[in-house]
């Protein structure tokens, strides 16, 4: 039973690690989906003689070729998994939970139960999403943006009230049981066989109820997708409340706001964004679910002729653009939720390995505040060609352009941090430097898309695909790799292998650019995204060889993750034992115990005397002056 206590612990460190493992598993899944997509795009026809290996036969696809509806499901799931179950859970969930109390000198988070609940609810949401492809109506088909009325249609052969097959039901049941166990074990913390059986019984009963409700709500892949996003939204809001309360109320003595490390600042801003934006997404998802069940028509017009038949049950009068406004009102701030924590962590890591204070600390904080604020006024730049009043585009173009100013401040300050440093090239540092370089490309391509006339040509083309991957893979993912290499010793008490880390980095960096940079050219030519096959279209067919090149590079990028997996798993077991402060860092999580004590986090109560980036301070002999060290 103590093993259950360990798994379902509400301690912020366990929750953070739980998020890390879950996020990395989903990362493998999302990456696998990307490989399937790339294979198909390089050889889109049966006559190419390159049927998909294994998967094609396993799925019994005609000629081993992925059918168009499966392709639509693949990219929809890839994006949803990567955004909602990899980047947000890893950056905000794993590192937010693990780092915030340790970095601000708190013994716990403000609401440990809420923190754990958010983890297990995210898992449940993930299982609901993955159950989708097994449902009678088939997998999600409307992309990660889920625009109605396409998303309001029903999967072939499905209708509300259908019962689920055994596989998805079991997946959801296990996750629901885990959620129930977490709640009962932590709400009634009593040991002994009798109480354990009681807790298990209550959890099983609750899980049974949850599965019943979920089955009623989700009856095809698309409604499972809506429900999954609703649940994951609730989970991230729980997490955000926890981080906000922790940062605002539990800072240790001496830890003023302007002594907070930038990673904590960035998580604070990310939490504000989540708290203010996610309810809008949740609202939109509820409206979509109601439309999907045909009890409302928020987004469905009168005289709707979907699937070549009338829908007398739809009263009509709805407006499809409303969904886009609600969705992007969440999803644009969500981009900043996915990039701000990476900004903060990369700032920390650059400063540590350049052995130099962060250049313009306060400007960095104000820049993040500006991004947070402006982030709420740019959403409709996703909708310049959506049929929205085009003159409204001007407003959003200008606000979008101006969000580049604080982003530029951050880039220049990172350069200022590196300049004059004493730079140590560790695996973490390489990833952090790559983050700066790749984020610059992603940011600059954003200027093209912000300009309304240029956007008219580039919107919904591969240029956008290149842009988001430079921001979210080149940015968030490389930032995440840096963070994992950097904080792994603190999380697991062992070092990761530097040589494997560098192989992983260089292979990923080169392959990443070979995959995503050519997509700018595809987009410039006008090749639409989410396209099953371009080799028949006169305007684009000469670009097919470039597609093959991108696919080969994507396979290299996929293979390049193997050293990371080996390194991560191997270091858990065989890694060199870490000392308390292997990187000579100044912040609180490194300057106390080697492995943070389970309940108290610190061996001595934390006390802070100065800012977080005192590297090469002439007051001391060593090249770092910890926040907690008293100088007489």
């Amino acid at each position, binding site marked *: 039973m103590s093993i259950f206590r360990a798994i379902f612990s509400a301690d912020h460190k366990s929750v953070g690690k739980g998020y890390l493992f879950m996020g990395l598993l989903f990362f493998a899944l999302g990456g696998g989906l990307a490989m399937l997509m790339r294979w198909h795009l390089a050889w889109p026809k049966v006559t190419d003689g390159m049927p998909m290996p294994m998967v094609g036969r396993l799925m019994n696809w005609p000629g081993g070729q992925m059918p168009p509806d499966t392709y639509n499901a693949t990219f929809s799931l890839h994006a949803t998994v990567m955004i909602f179950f990899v980047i947000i859970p890893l950056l905000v969930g794993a590192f937010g939970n693990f780092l915030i109390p340790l970095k601000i000198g708190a013994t716990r988070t403000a609401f440990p139960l809420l923190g754990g609940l958010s983890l297990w609810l995210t898992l449940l949401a993930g299982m609901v999403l993955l159950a989708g492809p097994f449902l009678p109506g088939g997998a999600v088909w409307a992309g990660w943006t889920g625009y109605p009325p396409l998303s309001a249609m029903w999967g072939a052969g499905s209708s509300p009230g259908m019962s689920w097959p055994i596989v998805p039901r079991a997946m959801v049941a296990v996750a629901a049981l885990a959620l129930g166990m977490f709640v009962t074990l932590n709400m009634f913390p009593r040991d002994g066989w009798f109480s354990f059986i009681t807790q298990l019984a209550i959890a099983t009963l609750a899980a049974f109820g949850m599965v019943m409700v979920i089955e009623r709500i989700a009856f095809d892949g698309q409604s499972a997708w809506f429900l999954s996003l609703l649940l994951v939204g609730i989970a991230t809001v729980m997490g955000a409340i926890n981080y906000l309360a922790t940062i605002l109320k539990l800072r240790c003595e001496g830890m003023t706001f302007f002594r907070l490390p930038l990673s904590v600042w960035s998580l604070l801003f990310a939490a504000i964004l989540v708290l203010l934006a996610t309810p809008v997404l949740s609202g939109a998802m509820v409206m979509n679910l109601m439309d999907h069940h045909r009890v409302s028509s928020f987004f469905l017009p009168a005289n709707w002729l979907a699937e070549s038949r009338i829908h007398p049950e739809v009263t009509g009068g709805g407006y499809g653009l409303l969904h886009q406004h609600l969705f992007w009102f969440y999803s644009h701030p969500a981009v900043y939720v996915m990039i701000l924590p990476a900004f903060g962590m990369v700032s920390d890591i650059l400063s540590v390995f350049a052995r130099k204070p962060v250049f313009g600390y306060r400007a960095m904080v104000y820049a993040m505040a500006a991004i947070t604020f402006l982030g709420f006024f740019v959403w409709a730049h996703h909708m310049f060609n959506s049929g929205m009043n085009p003159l409204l585009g001007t407003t959003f173009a200008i606000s979008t352009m101006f969000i580049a100013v604080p982003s530029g401040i951050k880039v220049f300050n990172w350069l200022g941090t590196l300049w004059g440093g004493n730079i140590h090239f560790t695996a973490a540092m390489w990833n952090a430097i790559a983050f700066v370089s790749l984020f610059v490309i992603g940011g600059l391509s954003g200027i093209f898309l912000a300009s309304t006339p240029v956007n008219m040509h580039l919107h919904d083309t591969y240029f956008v695909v290149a842009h988001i991957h430079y921001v979210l893979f080149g940015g968030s993912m490389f930032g995440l790799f840096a963070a994992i290499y950097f904080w792994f010793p603190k999380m697991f008490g062992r070092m990761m292998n530097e040589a494997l880390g560098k192989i992983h980095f260089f292979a990923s960096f080169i392959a990443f650019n070979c995959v995503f940079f050519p997509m700018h050219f595809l987009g410039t030519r006008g090749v639409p995204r989410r396209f099953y096959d371009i080799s028949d279209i006169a305007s684009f067919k000469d670009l097919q060889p470039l597609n093959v090149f991108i696919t080969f590079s994507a396979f290299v990028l996929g293979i390049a993750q193997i050293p990371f997996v080996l390194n991560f798993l191997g270091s858990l077991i065989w890694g060199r034992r870490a000392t308390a402060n292997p990187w000579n860092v100044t912040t609180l999580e490194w300057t106390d115990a080697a492995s943070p004590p389970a309940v108290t986090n610190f061996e001595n109560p934390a006390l802070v005397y100065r800012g977080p980036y005192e590297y090469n*301070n002439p007051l001391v002999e060593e090249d770092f002056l910890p926040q907690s060290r008293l100088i007489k």
Partner: protein
Amino acid sequence: MKWDVAPILASSWWLPANHSEHGSGFDGLFTLILWITVGIFVLIHIVLLTSLIRHRNRPGRTKAWFIHGNNRLEIFWTIIPAIILTVVSLLSTRVWQSYHAMRDIGQPDAVRVLVIGQQFKWNVIYPGPDGQLGRYLLYPSTTDERWPDGQRFRGSNGPAALPQEKREEAINAYIEQINPLGKDLTDPLGTDDDWRNALARDLVVPVGRRVEVYLASRDVIHDFAVPLMRVKMDTIPGTIGLLTFMPTKISADEPGGAYDIVCEELCGTGHYTMRGRLVVVDNAAYERAEHVMVTP
């Protein structure tokens, strides 16, 4: 598996040719932004690489500079990007406004055409000699007393006269056989519209005249995009959008004799097959063409 580098390098990576009046302004803006961003990219990477090389840790180097920032420098690199972005914003706004000013002018010689998207084809409806389009996408409801064309269908005067369980099926059959676009047959403006063979036919427009494409959809959101005309707009079911452009070149020289119309908004399984043809002809050929004749 055959693969070599030559065909990759042979394909063009630049903007496709532009054959619309407004497109040159758009492309100019693209080129301007490209130069600005390439300049910024090169500058940042020179500084980045220099600092990585010059300030790397090496034997004999043990200390880094101890500085926390430089207000003057930071103000400089806040204001310079702000100025550049202001200029780009103003230029974008100017190009965008001048493009959209086109549709307010209401030129008398403008050509109007209604394009209705459906999974996975485009319907093209010409206004006929009066140049005015009628109303579309109005389908019978189960409570209607009469069929829209006033004729009897399936032995009834209207859906309401049929038994409850047969109404929906009858309406679907009516739509499929008689009125797939839900044309309002009572609208006097639409009596001369050419709408009967609208499905998947060429969109024919004259060169050098303003084209007003009205955009609608029967089912889901599609996107009417012509990369060579630099135009793109979604079709939202339940609303009518307006897209304007002026072709500057006839399409006879293109492969297939037409510009590709591509759907650039995910619209379902057959999304990638949803294509149309934009045929641009000279004015005389346009006036002669059959599709502007009355087809009552």
